[in-house]
């Protein structure tokens, strides 16, 4: 291959790289708004499952707070708290807590807690648990996650906030104990955090950057 032809060859390769990258870039820019809107809508839908629109009259996305508590909330990073109010009275809040000890890494949760400390519900946002076993924590795949509805630190009492295998009141999943154990622990710790900080969680006003997209 002579000099001339190798230059042509590299130019061809270069052009393909430019065109390929260009097309991906164009697609990315033209879809990114839509994707962000999709994510937002999906998150809002999840929040509304825990705190139905009828129960609050504020903008869940605007009335947020970020808090940090590595031990109780499961992540060293900031955790977003979405607050629901009706006529300026606190109704409930949803915390984006994390269960750090899943079978394959962290499990991100939404924990909805009513003002009185009972659980409005729990949902799994992302996880990498074993398909067919651990993924029964997804609401689409089994009813397991509904088992938290209405529970609180008094019901069941603190010592029984475990899966049955560990002497508690919560079912484990067939073939998967680590996953439910991680979630039960994370929900219990979220409730503990809520009990300690309830008034502050509702009274601190939203920081200016609270409009930012939640994780």
């Amino acid at each position, binding site marked *: *291959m002579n000099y001339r*032809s190798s230059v*042509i*060859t*590299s130019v*061809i*390769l270069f052009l*393909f*790289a430019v065109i*390929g*990258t260009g*097309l*991906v870039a164009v*697609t*990315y820019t033209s*879809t990114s708004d*839509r*994707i962000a809107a*999709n994510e937002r809508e*999906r998150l809002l839908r999840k929040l509304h499952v825990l705190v139905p629109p009828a129960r609050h009259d504020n903008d869940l996305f605007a009335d947020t707070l970020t808090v940090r508590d590595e031990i109780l909330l499961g992540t060293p990073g900031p955790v977003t708290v979405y607050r629901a109010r009706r006529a300026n009275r606190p109704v409930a809040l949803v915390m984006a807590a994390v269960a750090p000890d899943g079978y394959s890494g962290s499990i991100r949760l939404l924990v909805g807690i009513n003002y009185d400390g009972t659980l409005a519900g729990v949902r799994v946002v992302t996880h990498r648990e*074993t*398909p*067919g*076993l651990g993924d029964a924590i997804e609401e*689409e*795949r089994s009813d397991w996650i509904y088992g938290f509805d209405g529970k609180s630190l008094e019901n069941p009492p603190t010592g029984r906030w475990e899966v049955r295998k560990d002497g508690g009141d919560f079912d484990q999943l*067939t*073939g998967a104990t680590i996953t439910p154990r991680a979630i039960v622990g994370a929900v219990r710790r979220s409730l503990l955090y809520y009990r300690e900080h309830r008034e502050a969680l509702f009274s601190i006003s939203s920081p200016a950057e609270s409009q930012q997209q939640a994780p």
Partner: protein
Amino acid sequence: MNEPGYQHILKEGLWNNNPGLVQLLGLCPLLAVTNSVVNGLGLGLATTLTLITTNVIVSGIRNLVRPEVRIPVYVLVIASVVTIIELAMNAWFHDLYKILGIFIPLIVTNCAIIGRAESFASKQTVDRAFIDGLAMGVGFTLVLVTLGGMRELIGQGTLFAQAHLMFGEPGRALAMTLIDDYRGFLLAILPPGAFIGLGLLIALMNVINARREERELARDLDVARPSQA
């Protein structure tokens, strides 16, 4: 250069040279995803779309690309196409994307795609490359769905569970529980089930092929030696 007819190309992709059962390409996604019919179907359709697109593009640029750099160019084409499909799905079919999300990037690792680009599309006209992509994709999808069905049925006693995630609410009616109070057979859903299931499928295909050959042989003999009745 030989120019196979459409029918021949279809037969190759669907049976004789099936990417899943004969070429044994794309085992990584094939084994990972086939724990249910719906998962298999989803990945199969996405792979088919990718195969058709990349085959057409590779065939379209076949006179432009120098042989020395053809592999990097194919890799570029495939990676771009998959990324664009992923972004487009995320934007317009968000719910489906959420389910297949992790499988879409996996398509890049499917060597069936670069295999078809190199061994077929780069040497054939665009229309043939299109048919080849379609046939190989559908062939691959059929294997994914069959294996997914076997594993889902044996593993949890259902078929088409979670179909509504893909087809919307009407899909809910598709979901069937074939065995009530089934305790589940974990092995089928876990990775070993995929290997065993694929092995059984390949064995079944060999049996069918052997039978067919036997019959053809018998027919040939009949022709050579007319019946004495």
